């Protein structure tokens, strides 16, 4: 899922100071899965914003609505009936959803209530770890199902670097496993260490954001 985290409250308060009627809009898909932008979080943020703004001497009304997915126009449309009553929307969907809302309601101030940070999996309850970097050149078939782009702090193609800590943890974050350590362990378990001996050539990054903003067209699906 796409994961996001709440923006610091003072940052939101600063943005909302000039508004009176606010809509907090949530999304029931990715951001709900990472406990940042689902209905629960909408209902938590709404009273919090009200109180925080009151502390700044501002009285605001806060409406709430959580739609199934903010990245789909048909669901974004559900917010339309609330729009005439508000002068700002705080969306706690991912950056995609926030932009869809901003595009559908271009006359309204739309603020992000979260920072979208990664493509992750919920590894354990309350813990999400990045798994994919959307590099557009997937090598999972060569690294035994472990992504060195997203999970190596240096995105090495021929890791590990000399920084692997004891117990196979990453030099940059001791809470993270060194993915190249893990790749080696898996290769060893399968008796395929020789697959790691070939020098992998520089990656082609052009199929990702590095090649320019992504645009995908499927002629077979066009009207």
């Amino acid at each position: 899922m796409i994961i996001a985290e709440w923006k610091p409250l003072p940052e939101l308060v600063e943005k909302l100071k000039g508004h009176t009627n606010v809509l907090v809009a949530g999304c029931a898909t990715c951001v709900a899965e990472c406990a940042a932008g689902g209905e629960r979080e909408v209902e938590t943020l709404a009273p919090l914003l009200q109180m925080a703004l009151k502390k700044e001497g501002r009285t605001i009304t806060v409406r709430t609505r959580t739609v199934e997915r903010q990245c789909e126009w048909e669901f974004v449309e559900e917010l339309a009936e609330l729009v005439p009553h508000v002068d700002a929307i705080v969306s706690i969907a991912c950056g995609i959803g926030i932009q869809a809302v901003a595009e559908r309601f271009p006359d309204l101030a739309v603020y992000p209530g979260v920072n979208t940070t990664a493509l992750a999996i919920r590894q354990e309850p309350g813990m999400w770890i990045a798994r994919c970097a959307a590099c557009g050149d997937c090598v999972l078939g060569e690294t035994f199902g472990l992504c060195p782009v997203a999970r190596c702090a240096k995105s090495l193609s021929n890791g590990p670097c000399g920084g692997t800590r004891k117990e196979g943890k990453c030099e940059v974050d001791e809470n993270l496993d060194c993915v190249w350590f893990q790749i080696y362990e898996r290769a060893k378990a399968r008796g395929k260490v020789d697959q790691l001996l070939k020098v992998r050539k520089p990656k082609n990054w052009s199929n990702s954001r590095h090649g320019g903003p992504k645009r995908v067209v499927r002629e077979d699906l066009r009207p």
Partner: protein
Amino acid sequence: MMKAGTRLEKTLRAGHFALTVEVGPPRGPNPEDVLRKAKLLKDIADGYNVTDNQTAVVRMSSIAGAVILQGAGCEPIMQMTCRDRNRIALQSDLLGAWALGMRNCLCISGDHQKASASGKLKGDPGAKNVFDVDSMQLISILKDMRDAGVLASGDPISQPTPFFIGAAWTPFAPPEEFRVLRLAKKIEAGADFIQTQAVFDMKRFATAVAAAEKMGLTDKAAILAGIIVPKSARMLEYMNANVPGVEVPESLIKRMAAAKDQRQEGYKITVELIQAAQKIPGVKGVHLQAIESEEVLPEIIKAAGLLPRPQV
């Protein structure tokens, strides 16, 4: 066949035990800061590593520092990390460095920018990192620019750029059994010389080198044992606990702690480490580092009996 004809290369080819030292560029633009070090360290080594924004802390560039050293009569080993520059910038800087007379280059991954915010420094943990290519690929790039006159893209350059290519080796970092295999990869990619992470346990190091020798690696590339001059028992403890791949035997820490003059003991230990490295078959030299205190190096090198450096 000579790859680049540098002093380091010639020294190794002639069969001498080589010695390189490390010079950290200043956190400022003053060439005097480099010249001062050059004066202190002239004629005591066969190559002078100039670090590349080590620990992601902004310093005078490795190329600039290296050119200044060269002008002062110290043959530099330019260091290049993969953290800050993409392949276009790296290759461009290599062409420029060669034009300015650089002929030794050590290719390493580089510390993540998080490392820059430690101690009193704010650093740049918020900077974007590059890591377009990794150290292995950078080695290959240098090899192709030298031996085929071709860039990573496949486009040709107007003439080849002979470099003596270096790489790093951390034999004890986990997964330990893979480290010698990765060394083999680096040598296959084109590494001519290897400088290791600091070694404090020469016996253990000898086993790792023996494994490399068994694979035929010590004939293909010259391994220089990395040695850091210890200043205190606390420094040794810190390195043992915090620097990946560095293992300091308990006995050494105890010895330092018991010493009346820890600094002097540190010099003694360094000399012993150098002499132990000389006895390991397959080890062709040492790479000495005295972090932020390069001035102690001449005395230590002299005490180790490595002066004067052989004429090549």
